[in-house]
């Protein structure tokens, strides 16, 4: 991975922030140089035993100098404040006609919903040159969505919506990460901001399965195929409860513990005797030949939608 994912200035606002930054670096550098050279210079010139001219400074001179640099400092600092603030004020207007994307943060993942209904996990796809507004909330603790290439971040709070808006001017894949300490896996709560050209974004949006519909279809299949006959809580047959199954660690009857990912769910439907959950008899019938691939996708989408607790994704390398 290159530093472009972090350091690129991917919007006009980001470029402005960078120029403010470099102006400040220059001013600070000059002040530091001034102070350092004065100190070094005085230390050298007035070291004990040197033949520099000494004696008292006139009171008046000392007082004038004092007032002088106090006022100069005050004006310089006020100038910097004004410069930075005017930058900020122009960025405060929420753009009209922005694309509104919803973000839900929870320990330790980002759930994103596109306006077209497409859902993403730890990724946000956006079109370039279009104002995008993220409406964000948290399901648990305070998180923070940090988009370094936009030079933006915003705390994501429980019980409230906070907003972050930008207009991307560069396409590419950029870094997205959590920037408010939120517990164990804070440092791997990262993902990607994918900026695409407008036609690419449209194509991508169309290609997304309508996640809502997928899960609904899956729910209907769950009933029509007879799954709920055993897996419903009220069933008299002893079968594992599937709420929150996706991503959960499942202890198996042979002592192993596996994570219930898509592959596991698929296998459980097609090859139920392969990995039997501990504490349960291997009485589930196989559905190979009774479900199509599409139907499998829908069933798995439905199972994924059965929430019950935080899902744990393996740490990403960034």
């Amino acid at each position, binding site marked *: 991975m290159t530093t472009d994912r972090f350091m690129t200035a991917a919007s006009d606002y980001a470029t402005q922030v960078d120029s403010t930054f470099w102006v400040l670096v220059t001013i*600070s550098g000059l002040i530091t140089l001034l102070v350092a050279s004065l100190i070094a210079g005085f230390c050298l010139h007035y070291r004990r035993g040197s033949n520099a001219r000494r004696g008292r400074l006139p009171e008046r001179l000392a007082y004038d100098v004092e007032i002088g640099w106090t006022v100069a400092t005050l004006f310089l600092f006020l100038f910097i404040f004004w410069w930075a603030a005017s930058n900020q004020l122009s960025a405060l207007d929420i753009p009209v006609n922005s694309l509104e994307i919803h973000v839900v943060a929870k320990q330790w993942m980002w759930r994103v919903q596109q306006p077209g209904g497409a859902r993403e996990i730890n990724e946000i796809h956006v079109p370039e040159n279009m104002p995008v507004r993220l409406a964000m909330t948290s399901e648990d603790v305070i998180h923070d969505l940090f988009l370094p290439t936009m030079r933006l*971040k915003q705390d994501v709070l429980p019980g409230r919506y906070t907003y972050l808006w930008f207009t991307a001017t560069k396409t590419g894949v950029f870094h997205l990460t959590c920037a408010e300490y939120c517990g164990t896996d804070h440092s791997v709560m990262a993902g990607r901001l994918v900026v695409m050209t407008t036609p690419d974004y449209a194509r991508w949006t169309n290609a997304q399965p309508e996640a809502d519909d997928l899960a609904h279809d899956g729910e209907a299949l769950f009933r029509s195929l007879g799954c709920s006959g055993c897996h419903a809580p009220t069933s008299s047959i002893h079968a594992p409860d599937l709420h929150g199954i996706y991503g959960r660690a499942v202890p198996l009857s042979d002592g192993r513990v596996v994570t219930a990912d898509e592959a596991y769910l698929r296998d459980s439907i097609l090859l139920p005797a392969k990995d039997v959950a501990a504490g349960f008899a291997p009485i589930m019938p196989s559905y190979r030949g009774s479900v199509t691939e599409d139907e499998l996708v829908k069933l798995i989408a439905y199972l994924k939608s059965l929430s019950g607790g935080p899902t744990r994704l393996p740490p990403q390398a960034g």
Partner: protein
Amino acid sequence: MTDTAIADATVEAQPASYLAAGHTLLSWLTTTDHKRIAILYAISITFFFFIGGIAIALVRLELMTPQGLILTSDAYNRLFSLHGIIMVWFFLVPSIPATMGNFLLPLMIGAHDVAFPRLNLLSWYLYVFGAAFTVYALISGGVDTGWTFYTPLSTNYATGYVIAAAAGVFVVGFSSIATGINFIATAHMLRAPGMTWFRLPLFVWAMYTVSMVMVLATPVLAMSLLLVIAERAFGLPIFDAARGGDPVLFQHLFWFYSHPAVYIMILPAMGVVSEVIPCFARRTIFGYAFMVYALIAIAVIGFMVWGHHMFVAGQSPLANLVFSFLSFIVAVPSAIKVFNWTATLHRGQITFEAPMLYALGFVGLFTIGGLTGLFLASVPIDIHATDTYFVIAHFHFVMVGGTVSAYMAGLHFWWPKVTGRMYSEAWARFAAITTFLGFNATFMPQFVMGWNGMPRRYHYYPDVFQAWHVMSSVGALILAVAYVLPLIYFGWSMIYGRRAGANPWNATGLEWQTSSPPAKENFDHIPRIDAGPYAYDESDHPPAAGDRTLVRSQGETA
């Protein structure tokens, strides 16, 4: 008379030192002598400095590789939390006030002790009691909320010993308040005759202003932690969003204390530097009155800027603007102090003993730290840089490059007064220079990686930042060596160090007119003051030639 005879005469002529007044442990644990209490504090905070240091050494070791080395994420998170909690409340906040403030305040104003000696001892026991809670939390497994205890993580989601840690900080806060009350009353009521406010050394002004901040700010921290404990222990909704609570309210309460807290950490440091630089430049401080007003301005305006920690917390843009503006204003008095310290060198007769090296290092590092504060006071810059290593670098520049350097300057400056011994100047200078270099190597890379997007409190990190992290960790190793060295040579000096005279630096200030170490009562007769501080005019206080330890100052009355 030979040099040795002068030394012997000096030793014999001294009244019984405070160190000789009782040799049992009990005499130390029940003392009301401000000088002994200062030493009790010094031992305690040094112990905790090294605990906090070990925690961060493990963290920096872990950060050598992006995927971690030896720690789980939970362990890593607990280590950086512990580092913050211990360093802020069990080292930095008490550091200069509770050690040097306690030892020197009565001496500098010509008093026998502080206003409330028994309250002083109680304040140390409160420190120890609070520390006990924290050690308990540590031994039991630690806390992982960060030193900032943000809700609802701390109240409803964190595993770990949040209540014990918060209770420890709650208790130690009252140690702060007690010290503050004592110092304010002492400064108001116990100054020697003729010691008017504008004849006080700047160190006394620094103790006075910092005490005001401690008394006014710390109670708010106490209440915010009490509310966290109430919510976590009893389920009482204060910050719980589900029942209408506002987690950001915690942040307001917390930072209302914690911003003035950073001024609690820097004002005493400024006081120390204002004593050291005039002495080793042999020149009165430039602009004494402005230095006093600057201390007061920092203390007062420091209460009005807490929102700059919350620019991305969900505050309104108007609030952001106001806090940003005030944050720029509070930087002005600090800048004035930097110029005045620099101007004090002008036309001086400068020498470079260890205290001076540390003090000059302070001025440089504090300047850089303060300037990067301006970056963070600018809202658009802060939005990008907050919660990254840029902030970590900024506050370590001011707190470590600043306060710890000043603490070391003061430690070396007053060591002869406190112990009656001289330390090894060669080793001390070596340690001072190593500190400066190690510090820059540790924290300069953090500015770079912070601006480039490296977030803070991260156990695992993206590969691209590894080079910077390795640089920083190697710097930290150098810094660690520089911090261990003083333990060794100071320890050595207590047994084998040359005995110091009353005024080895030929400094002004009432504390140098007592013996080294001082007598238990400080002064036989309370002196009468008729001049201001820093009378480093060449005719009265010539720079000592040759071996300083055997020179007696003009004004010695012991």
